[in-house]
């Protein structure tokens, strides 16, 4: 066995189209071993397609990738030995009980009988599925099914795990549980490639985040780096009446009117100096604001700024 590579995934110019639709338009990815990497994007962005390519399910139209040190195109079986995949949709055998599903995985990983049983018992315990072990997945809640799915992925002790939208459709509690499981996995040294539609999830879990938009990576970096990509946040002002609002709009120029008709969103770097200047400006003109709030940029701003050109209209 070769030593664990520093870089878990190194992909170059991955391309994939379905008919006329370009899904991936040349994306580069680097995932360091032992980290959580999150691919963030709305529905249809191409997250699942990326996972399918990197997990050997489909071939890219162009580009190359090394996964756990093996070339994706030339040594897919070597890649498969190193990875585990929990897809977006349940990949459990619905006709077998939870325990039988895990034992099936143990058999397919060529664990001997005793080790297979031990590993199964261990995973049932760890994922809180002991009571459900002898039942069919149809009787499971959504969260339990995801946990079984993930447990099946872990039977072979993979070095790299793909989690395609692991919390979509889960209730908040199950999502929390899943987050804890993912953190524990990362702590144990497993590399995790996580896709999600939720900024909060990426922010909470990931060491690095890449934003997928229109087939390209619109941005990539640590959560903090991404926030820095947006030069500033904004200030929200609420006025008592339309008259005051219009006066403020004339005064401040770049502001955008909010949906309620009485509030204004003003871009700002949120530094004390500029906030004071803004308030002074309003004071001097005799325009009075009812409410004033400062929004330092969060991932939402990054996300909308990168992926939605109509942001100005939608937010504020």
């Amino acid at each position: 066995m070769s030593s664990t590579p520093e870089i878990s995934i190194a992909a170059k110019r991955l391309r994939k189209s379905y008919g006329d639709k370009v899904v991936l338009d040349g994306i580069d990815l680097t995932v360091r071993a032992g980290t959580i990497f999150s691919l963030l994007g709305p529905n249809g962005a191409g997250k699942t397609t990326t996972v399918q390519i990197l997990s050997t399910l489909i071939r890219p139209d162009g580009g190359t990738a090394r996964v756990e040190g093996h070339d994706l195109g030339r040594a897919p079986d070597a890649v498969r030995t190193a990875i585990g995949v929990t897809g977006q949709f349940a990949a459990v055998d619905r006709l077998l009980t939870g325990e039988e599903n895990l034992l099936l995985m143990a058999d397919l990983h060529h664990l001997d009988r005793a080790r297979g049983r031990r590993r199964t018992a261990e995973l049932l315990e760890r994922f809180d599925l002991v009571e459900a072990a002898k039942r069919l997945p149809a009787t499971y809640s959504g969260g339990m099914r995801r946990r079984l799915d993930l447990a099946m992925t872990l039977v072979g002790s993979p070095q790299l795990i793909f989690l395609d939208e692991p919390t979509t459709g889960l209730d908040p509690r199950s999502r929390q549980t899943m987050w804890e499981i993912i953190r524990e996995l990362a702590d144990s040294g497993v590399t995790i490639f996580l896709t999600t539609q939720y900024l909060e999830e990426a922010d909470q879990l990931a060491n690095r985040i890449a934003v997928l938009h229109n087939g390209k990576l619109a941005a990539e970096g640590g959560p903090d780096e991404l926030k820095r990509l947006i030069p500033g946040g904004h200030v929200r002002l609420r006025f008592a009446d339309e008259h005051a609002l219009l006066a403020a709009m004339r005064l401040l120029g770049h502001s955008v009117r909010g949906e309620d008709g009485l509030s204004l969103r003003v871009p700002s770097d949120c530094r004390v100096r500029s906030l004071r200047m803004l308030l002074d400006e309003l004071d001097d003109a005799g325009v009075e604001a009812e409410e004033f709030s400062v929004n330092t940029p969060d991932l939402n701003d990054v996300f909308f700024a990168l992926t939605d050109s109509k942001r100005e209209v939608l937010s504020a």
Partner: protein
Amino acid sequence: MRDSIHDSVTMLRRNLLHARRYPSMTISTVAMPVLMLLLFVGVFGGALGTGIGGASYIGSYVDYVAPGIILMAATSGSVATAVSVSVDMTEGIVNRFRTMAISRSSVLTGHVIGGVIQTMVSIALVVGVALLMGFRPTAGPLDWLGAFGLLLAMTFAMTWLAAAFGLVSKGPESASNAPMPLMFLPMLGSGFVPPERMPGAVRWFAEHQPFTPIIETLRGLLMGTPLVGGTGALALGWCALIALIGFLWARRAFSRAVAR
């Protein structure tokens, strides 16, 4: 190679567990030929029996029709494979298998071997019912062995074909319908009535379709009826051809299918 056998055995165990736990599919594939047997022997038997020439059949139409119906059990059994393959493809579990370092072919091999075992059990049941209804084969041990071999070859061929149907069909329902026409082919062969008694075009079809030599060979083995030279070889040739087509088609369809 060893790994691929190991994986195929694992997949086979999985498929047999499915079949044991959900026997309704197997039962319905046995029910069909048994019903045909009851219908043709119990209801039409008298009328049809006297109509069929050959002195050896007088008074025991069951002896004439049983081989054809036993063969129907082989095709009807393949429906179960078509359905279980198609269910797998819609379930996404196959995608999990495909991201694992297991031999690709083991998924299909497991289905096909499992299907063959189930169908052979069904065939044994149908033979049992035929015996209860007065089927009196004249076969000696070697003939029985030959009949078993032929049925195995036939079942193997039909099961690969069914696996391909299961892979290309849109869902379990259409998968279960796909092999249906095959089930009725024995009727348009020498299964129920000798082709000499059929009208022109139908007769030509009956004499040249794959099931006729297979049925004739089976009948020859079980009942000792005389065979035109080369019928046995023709029967095995058809089985081999169908198996090959089914295998190649299934293999291609399998590597293409990525369940969504």
